[in-house]
């Protein structure tokens, strides 16, 4: 049957043209096309790799920042704590000192008051003695203005003195 009988001429031309076509396309089309495709894929791959690396770097930097921030925060906290502690301590110390000072002042005052009072009491006593003596003298002067009462007193005093 004609349809399934290959013709020699067509086989020949097919071989010739397909061969030339393959040769020309392989050399002048497929080689540059596949080359550029590969090159472009390399470029895309390296760009993607770079982006990935940058992203990793960024993440690392971010975590570093986070760490730094946390450290700074901790340091700030510790500084604040230390400051508070020292402030508290200073306050407590000054409070203690003030208390002691106060006590001392009170003590001093008390001592001074005491001394003052003792001196006052002594003075008063002295004065009272003087006053008493004066009074007694005045009384005695009045009492002993007559002779009988003078005698009586001498007698009483003598009695008392003897008994002693």
């Amino acid at each position, binding site marked *: 049957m004609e*349809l399934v009988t290959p013709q*020699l*001429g067509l*086989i020949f031309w097919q071989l010739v043209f*397909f061969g030339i076509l393959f040769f020309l396309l392989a050399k002048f089309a497929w080689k540059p*096309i596949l080359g550029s*495709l590969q*090159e472009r894929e390399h470029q895309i791959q390296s760009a993607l790799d770079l982006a990935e690396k940058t992203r990793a770097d960024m993440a690392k930097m971010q975590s570093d920042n986070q760490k730094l921030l946390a450290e700074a925060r901790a340091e700030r906290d510790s500084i604040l704590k230390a400051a508070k502690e020292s402030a508290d301590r200073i306050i407590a110390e000054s409070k203690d000192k003030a208390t002691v000072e106060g006590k001392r002042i009170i003590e001093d005052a008390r001592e001074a008051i005491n001394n003052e009072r003792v001196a006052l009491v002594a003075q008063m006593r002295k004065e009272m003695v003087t006053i008493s003596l004066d009074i007694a003298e005045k009384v005695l002067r009045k009492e002993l203005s007559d002779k009988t009462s003078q005698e009586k007193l001498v007698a009483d005093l003598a009695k008392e003195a003897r008994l002693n």
Partner: protein
Amino acid sequence: MKNISIRLFVLFLFLSALATPSVRAEEPHKHGEEEKFNAGEMIMHHVADEHQWHFATIGHTHVTLPLPIIIYDTNKGLKIFSSSHFYHSADGTHEGYKMEHEHISALDGAKLYDFSITKNVASLIISFILLLTIFFTVAKSYKSRSGKSPKGLQSALEPIIVFIRDEVAKNNIGEKHYRRFVPYLLTLFFFIWINNLLGLIPGGANLTGNIAVTLTLALITFFVVNFNGKGTYWGHIFAMPGVPKWLLIIMTPVEIVGVFMKPFSLMVRLFANITAGHIILLSFLSMIFIFESLAVSPAVAIFSTFINLIELLVAALQAYIFTVLTASYIGAAVEEHHH
């Protein structure tokens, strides 16, 4: 793109200048009697090769492009003349040669080799120029636009090129060897595809539905596969590992037949698919003439459009199947022993 269309237009002008359509009146004795329409004959005529390019028949006038006859006569040497001499002569003879049903023989009985530029060869040349134009343009845009994103024709064809490289070549042949075969597979795919599409154009030649063409392509694949056959490949053919010795008496002949069956199936598959598509399409068109009624034409138009669309799919599909099978045969041949 504009560049290409200009080039295609120039090509078209060039071809039409070559054509000098020999408009001839049909021989008077033919339309004297009412010829009965023979669908089978018409279809076979359209599917087969011929020594002229028949574009259209307007009334009783054939618009044809005569093509050069090139014959090698074992007695008289090379002879080149226009095929119009055969078609115009009353008895179909010229310079001692006779052409009957597109078959040329010498009147003196000498052995002839027919290397004529037939319709299929002319179509082959057109596809050759077309493919070179397309892919040189694409290659050029890769150079001029290197490092940039693809554009125009380049971006239309790039996915296909990448698909053939990655899905067809790399997947079937393997990472290690596939690069060597990508140019062949690309050429094969685009050659078959473009020619399938050219065959769908009304008046186009049925190149990929010609057994000589598919035979040649299958033979090239056969040689590519077997010349690249590694030890493992031949080992599987002549001494299938893991098979009892006595079974090899059966297995080895089967495997040897398989070596030839693979390209044979490639040849038949492409030929049968493309020719069948043409036959179905022509059969639908013949219905108008068989029923001799205009009423069937809407149905025919719908069906033939439908078939044409399917044929568009088949054109790409068969190109893909031929390429992918070639790749898998190559893959089996270059595969190395892993066990």
